[in-house]
């Protein structure tokens, strides 16, 4: 447990006792006997797979459950001394702030200043105190320059901060966040987490943060609460959580913890810093781990030494990692026959989009060639031009200069899969034998009679992909390029596994697969090549192992821990630490390693 505990007699920021809840017309309960106390000023991460009840618990804490959603509730929930079941969300608004996964859905005003001031205005605060509160929260979140901006001109990261500001402007005792980083690039995501930590420390706001990408937020947390099937299955400190996850639910392990597990190093690290410190201390006490200097030595033509690391599993030796990297699982790039047409050909591509004042250069002279069978991750911060590149290739946008062609055809799945689902029955979206074949290909043949809106996020994603590929999934009809734009938003690792398997299948069938994503761990899992865009130009293009281990923000957690070229996944890292041959872990699925089969 964290050091912050509720003192006897003190009012907890959140307290739930025996809380049970079922949504209307839902056969299974969403929350089962949840008992939880969050102390004032505590930073708690809420972990768990999709559908485990995290969002429902947050909604119960802010009063939306049951006041807005209806349903049946039992037990007690209190927020800063207020009975959340008796009080509505409006009355709780002064004590609790809530930020949803998609900030777009919770912005109601047209300008940022008005949006942030709305809760105070509705509360009846006088204009002067309203203005001061807006100014102060804008300063705290570093967005004073946005106050006069229209909300529909903001980037995803900016909008997320505005939503957070609107939640914090009433100075609540508790702030609840439901996967706030799912739409953010690694830079913005990290910034948001540390911003929350700073507010937590300086303002004393208790934070309850539901998140799938635990590697991003665990180091900032005082405590982790894990849920499964609506019940709390773990409640303790982050380091204890990692130990529990290793035994009970490896899907929740962070990559660094997974690396240590595979390498047999204890204790499991909470974040990159702890992992590096542990490896340093091991090196100091023994012969040392692969030192950062190895990188330079590699670059000079090969490893100068093979340092030995004493671990619980015995001494391990770093090994050379030619090409993609040690223990590489991802299939090496397929060399296209000479003269074969590329799946995607982009030459000197420049695209302008109309902005606030004038057209804005989104892409500036991009060149790119992707061949059939390649699996490419297209990465870059928000607004770097990833989606624009894919839309231009699909003919949805016209370039001002250059060209983007997909000679073998393109199937593009845009960011919101719901846009592809316009009917009320899955079978009606994909009629006939061709539709059945498409559903079978994505593993949704059992859902033909379901309403698309009742499917889970991952299933909707697969259904939308089936809609784009229907009638061209086999042989000659298969498009040369399948492009997916941010397909992993809000997905847990189990659903990402499914997606990786689908990508593998499409690539094996001969299609090039290009995925625009912010998720570096996912990219390390499926991609053989990474193209990094920055401000409309290509700033890096190379093997995934090289690109994802050569930086800080666009690097996997394992790469940041080990700082070894080409080592980006826990399996590769463990092989490097263990001094085993590169293929040691190659027969195991990266995203479905031992212990995760049960997902």
């Amino acid at each position, binding site marked *: 447990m964290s050091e912050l505990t509720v003192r006897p007699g003190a009012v907890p920021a959140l307290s739930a006792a025996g809380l049970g809840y079922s949504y209307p017309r839902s056969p299974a309960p969403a929350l089962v006997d949840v008992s939880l106390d969050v102390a004032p000023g505590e930073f708690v991460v809420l972990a768990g797979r999709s559908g485990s009840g995290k969002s429902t618990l947050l909604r119960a804490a802010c*009063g*939306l459950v049951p*006041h*807005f959603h209806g349903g049946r509730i039992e037990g007690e929930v209190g927020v800063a001394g207020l009975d959340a079941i008796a009080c*509505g*969300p*409006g009355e709780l*608004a*002064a004590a609790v702030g*809530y930020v*949803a996964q998609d900030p*777009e*859905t919770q*912005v*109601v*005003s*047209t*300008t940022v*200043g*008005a949006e942030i*001031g709305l*809760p105070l205005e*509705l*509360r*009846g605060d*006088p*204009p*002067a*105190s*309203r*203005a*001061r509160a*807006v*100014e102060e929260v804008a300063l705290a979140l570093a967005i004073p320059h946005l*106050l*006069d901006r*229209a909300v*529909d001109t903001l980037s995803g990261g900016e909008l997320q901060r505005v939503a957070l500001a609107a939640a914090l402007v009433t100075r609540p005792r508790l702030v609840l966040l439901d996967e706030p980083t799912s739409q953010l690039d690694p830079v913005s995501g990290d910034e948001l987490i540390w911003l929350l930590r700073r507010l937590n420390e300086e303002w004393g706001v208790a934070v309850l943060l539901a998140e799938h990408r635990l590697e991003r937020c665990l180091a900032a947390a005082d405590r982790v609460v894990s849920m499964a099937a609506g019940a709390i299955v773990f409640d303790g400190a982050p380091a204890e959580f990692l130990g529990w996850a290793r035994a009970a639910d490896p899907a929740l392990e962070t990559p660094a913890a997974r690396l240590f597990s595979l390498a047999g190093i204890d204790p499991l690290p909470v974040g990159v810093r702890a992992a590096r410190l542990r490896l340093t201390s091991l090196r100091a006490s023994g012969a040392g781990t692969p030192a950062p200097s190895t990188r330079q030595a590699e670059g000079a033509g090969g490893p100068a030494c093979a340092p030995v690391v004493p671990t619980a599993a015995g001494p391990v030796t770093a090994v050379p990692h030619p090409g993609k990297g040690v223990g590489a699982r991802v299939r090496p790039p397929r060399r296209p026959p000479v003269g074969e047409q590329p799946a995607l050909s982009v030459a000197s591509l420049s695209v302008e989009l*109309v902005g606030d*004042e004038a057209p804005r250069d989104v892409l500036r002279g991009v060149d790119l060639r992707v061949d059939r069978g390649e699996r490419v991750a297209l990465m870059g911060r928000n607004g770097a031009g990833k989606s624009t590149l894919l*839309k231009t290739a699909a003919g*949805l946008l016209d370039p001002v200069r250059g060209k983007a062609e997909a000679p073998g055809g393109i*199937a593009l*799945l845009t960011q919101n899969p719901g*846009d*592809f*689902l*316009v*009917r009320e029955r899955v079978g*009606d*979206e*994909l009629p006939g034998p061709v539709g059945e*074949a*498409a559903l079978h290909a994505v593993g949704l043949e059992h859902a033909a009679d379901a309403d698309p809106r009742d499917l889970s996020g991952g299933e909707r994603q697969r259904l939308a992909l089936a*809609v*784009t*590929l*229907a*009638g*061209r999934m086999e042989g000659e009809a298969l498009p040369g390029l399948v492009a997916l734009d941010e397909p992993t938003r809000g997905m847990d690792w189990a659903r990402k596994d499914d997606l990786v398997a689908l990508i593998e299948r499409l690539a094996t069938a001969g299609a090039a697969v290009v995925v625009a994503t912010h998720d570096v761990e996912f990219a390390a899992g499926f991609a053989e090549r990474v193209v990094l865009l920055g401000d409309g130009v290509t700033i890096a293009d190379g093997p995934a192992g090289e690109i994802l281990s050569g930086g800080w923000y666009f690097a996997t957690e394992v790469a940041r821990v080990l700082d070894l070229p080409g080592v980006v996944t826990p399996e590769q890292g463990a092989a490097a630490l263990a001094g085993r041959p590169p293929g040691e872990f190659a027969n195991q699925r990266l995203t479905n390693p031992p212990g995760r089969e049960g997902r």
Partner: protein
Amino acid sequence: MRSPFAYIPRPGPLQAASPGAAVAYLGALVVVAFLYSNPLVLLAAGAAAVLAGLLAGARTAVRAALRMGVALALLIVVVNALVVDRGQTVLARLGGWPLLGEVTITAEALVAGLSIGLRAAVAMVAFAVYSACVDPDRVLRALRPLAGRSALTATLVSRLVPVAAADAARLRDAAGLRGPGAAEVGKAPLARRLLAGSLDRAVDVAATLELRGYSLERGRPKRPHRSSQRRAIEGKKGLSAPKAFNRGSRFDRRFYLAGAVVLAAAVVGEVAGADEFEVYPAIAVGTGPATLALCALLVLAGLAPRRRRPHRRAAPASPAAAGSPKAVAALRGPGAAPLPEVPRV
């Protein structure tokens, strides 16, 4: 994609002015358009609206409004020419048409249609400038004391209509990306999906409003007593008055004045015969001094959103001169002791 008429915050006088002042100013131009038929006056009012929009930085909105306005004006001209056969100057006889009977195109009918079309175009441009330059949140905040819930509903509409337009564009794009084996997407399923999406958004917005405290009874903002406002501004309670609290603007007077002058001139012009314009049986457009004066005044009124350059003293010739002994000496009062000589290095 943003609507060309969407409000974009810019640092201009029209944007800084209170909604009332902006409405008074742009509304005066629209009143002139509906009060007058003389095409010269209408053209001058249109020029004033275009000028105001360009000076306020709403080039995109003005361009879009002109495109739509001219198209509408042309449509009105054509329809008027087809259905009205009055006038002495016959340009063409088109024979018998179904429903319309004998169609005769006259120059007078064309000009009459042009006058009506110009009127519509002026109103459209003025509205476009209003839409692009006046913050809807401020308008609605001004209206809230009168009708809080209606104002909030209007806020949501002004926020969600562009969102629905963006949704529709995305749905159209997705429809074009469907595979050949997927069901065809007609307009009806698309419209249904758009409606369902809008309802989902409405639910999200309702939840957000709940979380913001909309359901509270005490939600209606109380207008503080003027003296308590002043105390708050002066900082007696430690409160400052940042820009969000500013109720008025230093530009308000300019726009109220411009609007009042335009209205007064329009009324005086009516009395003085500035609206001389006969179409039937023959065209007679008044170009007397009253008409021309009114036109000139209207065009001048279009300059109201112009940003004045701040007065500055002549800058020193070079950055080095900024701190030169001469420059420093010029800033010292006449009674100040003379500066000591600094030896040159």
